[in-house]
């Protein structure tokens, strides 16, 4: 079930009413959330529910084993089993064909003929997200940062909680589990914040991202026939499309969670205002970047083992972060570009004793992100290289426009989105709590405006971009 569907428009109010008016104790509410979440997920393909159940069960059992073990080796062993089970599932469903393809290609390059071994595997929606969520829990138990959950329903609800199940934010057990365990009271503040953020999320996704996406799709479907201006425009549009698509999804997820009395962490914080790539990664897909920092970068030694090891760790983290997004070399290259620039920034900032270069840094950061997004969006490595070569050939004629209405609507809606972001930046307000700052009249009028803008300008799209990950 996706957020921008009729099914969800029916599902959400039903669960909301049952949750607050029928199931009034924590245990019953959690049970309702658990079954609703499985229903929500099973709407795609009920068979994949077994994967979530398996993943949840493994980590529930192993976390207790880890907690009870007094011997460090045993604790490590149980953690290893958890890592192998979770990453094994992820590797099979997401990377099996990628690795076998790459292996066959390598062998053929070396002159050995090997039979291609690819399987017809369907990628279960959200597997990368909930795998990382359960992993963080087990690692935290192993690190003795949190206690193993004693309530199986709470734990299973934590893994499958529907607002963030398929595309994050990747919530930490330390934040979400205590909220699941404690009694929740209906809060008007959270309700106001929630509905406002949901409305903004839908606006960002259905109006801005989906309109931009039409032009991007047009150009990126046949990139070889368009000139530099068209490709550059489409790449810039894509930078905003993916931002508003994914941040829109996160807004809806965070807003929906608030309706049920939960507070998630922020997942985006105006990333394109960043003055360096380092800052960008503190503001873009925050739940993933902090996950990678805490569980990969720091585990590798972080910046504690000298500058060369720090660079190595940064590169490994970003390359794997790229690979997390999908089984393609393009994602690895995308991660590699970000990793290389992070290393470069570390080096340069140290020399100049600074943390950024102001607005020049902001432009540079945007330029690098657009450049890297080309690898993210293009359908193949060859296409990415061809697009970049064409852009840097500076063949800047008139860009191909196609349907002028689509481009004008996209630009207008993008301007509204950007002005809203500028407003948040200047006023130093967070979208997460903007709803509660408005009085009832302002809230009602703002929501009416947003809803009517959605009604008049929404564009249809098959899915959220991050569902494929």
């Amino acid at each position, binding site marked *: 079930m996706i957020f921008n569907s009729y099914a969800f428009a029916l599902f959400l109010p039903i669960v909301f009413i049952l949750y607050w008016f029928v199931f009034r104790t924590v245990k019953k509410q959690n049970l309702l959330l658990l079954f609703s979440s499985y229903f929500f997920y099973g709407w795609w393909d009920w068979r994949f529910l077994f994967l979530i159940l398996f993943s949840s069960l493994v980590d529930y059992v192993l976390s207790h084993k880890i907690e009870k073990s007094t011997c460090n080796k045993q604790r490590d062993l149980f953690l290893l089993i958890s890592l192998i089970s979770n990453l094994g599932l992820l590797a099979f469903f997401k990377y099996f064909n990628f690795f076998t393809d790459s292996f066959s290609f390598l062998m053929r390059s070396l002159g050995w003929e090997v039979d291609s071994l690819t399987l017809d595997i369907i990628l279960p929606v959200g597997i990368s997200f909930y795998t990382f969520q359960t992993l963080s829990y087990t690692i935290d138990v192993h690190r003795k940062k949190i206690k193993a959950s004693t309530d199986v329903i709470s734990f299973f609800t934590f893994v499958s909680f529907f607002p963030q199940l398929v595309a994050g934010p990747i919530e930490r057990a330390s934040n979400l589990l205590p909220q699941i365990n404690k009694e929740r009271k209906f809060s008007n503040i959270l309700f106001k914040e929630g509905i406002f953020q949901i409305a903004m999320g839908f606006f960002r996704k259905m109006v801005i991202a989906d309109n931009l996406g039409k032009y991007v799709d047009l150009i990126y479907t046949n990139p070889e026939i368009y000139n530099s201006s068209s490709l550059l425009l489409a790449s810039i549009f894509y930078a905003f499309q993916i931002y508003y698509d994914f941040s829109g999804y996160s807004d809806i997820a965070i807003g929906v969670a608030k309706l049920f009395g939960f507070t998630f962490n922020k997942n985006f914080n105006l990333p394109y205002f960043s003055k360096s790539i380092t800052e960008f990664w503190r503001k873009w897909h925050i739940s993933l970047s902090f996950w990678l920092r805490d569980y990969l970068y720091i585990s590798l030694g972080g910046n504690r083992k000298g500058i060369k090891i720090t660079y190595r760790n940064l590169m490994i983290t970003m390359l794997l972060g790229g690979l997390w997004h999908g089984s393609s070399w393009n994602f690895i290259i995308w991660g590699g570009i970000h990793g290389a620039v992070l290393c470069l920034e570390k080096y340069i900032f140290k020399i100049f004793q600074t943390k950024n270069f102001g607005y020049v840094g902001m432009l540079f950061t945007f330029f690098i992100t657009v450049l890297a997004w080309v690898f993210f969006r293009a359908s193949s490595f060859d296409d990415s290289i061809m697009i970049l070569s064409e852009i840097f050939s500076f063949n800047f004629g008139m860009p191909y426009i196609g349907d002028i209405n689509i481009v004008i609507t996209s630009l207008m809606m993008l301007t509204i989105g950007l002005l809203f972001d500028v407003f948040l930046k200047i006023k130093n307000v967070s979208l997460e709590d903007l709803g509660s700052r408005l009085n009832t009249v302002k809230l009602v009028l703002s929501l009416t405006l947003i809803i009517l803008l959605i009604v*008049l*300008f*929404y564009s249809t799209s098959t899915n959220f971009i991050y569902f494929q990950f």
Partner: protein
Amino acid sequence: MKAFKITILILISVFTIDKILYFSIKSIEKEVLTGNGVGKVNHFLKVKDTTQFLVFGSSRANHHIEPLIFGNSSFNMGSGGTNIAYSNALIHTLPKNRKQIILLQFDIDYFFEKNYKGEDIKNLSVKYHQNKIIKNKIDDIQMNNHFSNIIWCLNYNGKLLSILKNKFFPKYDYQTYFGFDPMQNTPEQKEIFKKRLKKSEKVKLDCENYEVGVLNFKFLNDIILFCENNNKSLIVFASPTYYDKCKMDNNIVVELMKNLKVKYLDLTDTFIDKEDLDLWKDETHLSNKGAKIFSKVLYTKIRGNF
């Protein structure tokens, strides 16, 4: 309780402002007679009862047929992004028993699209609350957004800017417009076309297993029946394409039209000489130069009907 109050207030506010906005847009929209979306439909509805020769179809009708070659009482209602469901709905709005000639452009490729559900009819959703025939046609294939019965502005989704633009800055005088939109070839466009040709040369098509889409066939039959019963002469034609790699589908359609007793012209290969790229905008669209020649060719083939 406060949340309940806010929810009710939002619903009332959205419902009320939606209606105010809907009627405001409608009052502007009704006066718009230019522009390829809403304006052209309004223009068509205004002239349809008094026009003798009418062209229907997709962008290939819109950009390829110069109606004035066929006489002064003519209008080209071809529209980009539309298909036979859209044409069918508009043809059914024509006056009963008035003699008219209908030229229907027919997309052979789409005719074999099994998954075609008639989504193009949504381009007429602006008229859902205004024209009963169009409303019924949309409802027949369940292409109405059910929410639009509550939130009426949904019918103006994606059209507001074009309505405002054409109201305040019309790009032509509708009284001298007959629905033909010639395509000019810019140097950039020529470059794009050359590159596209290179790419499509390599594409291999599956030229077997053709099965007519159920809905396509239904709409074609509806049109034929309407024309038979309402004094309309129907002529169906397939528009030129630069590459027509498969001929089997063309032959199936020729046979089918023969069985349906429809006058059908397969003009896919009108321009056998592929050297003159100035005739084309892309593989399936003619430039203004190509369209002028094609309109004359078509006229000579059907002038007996006038």
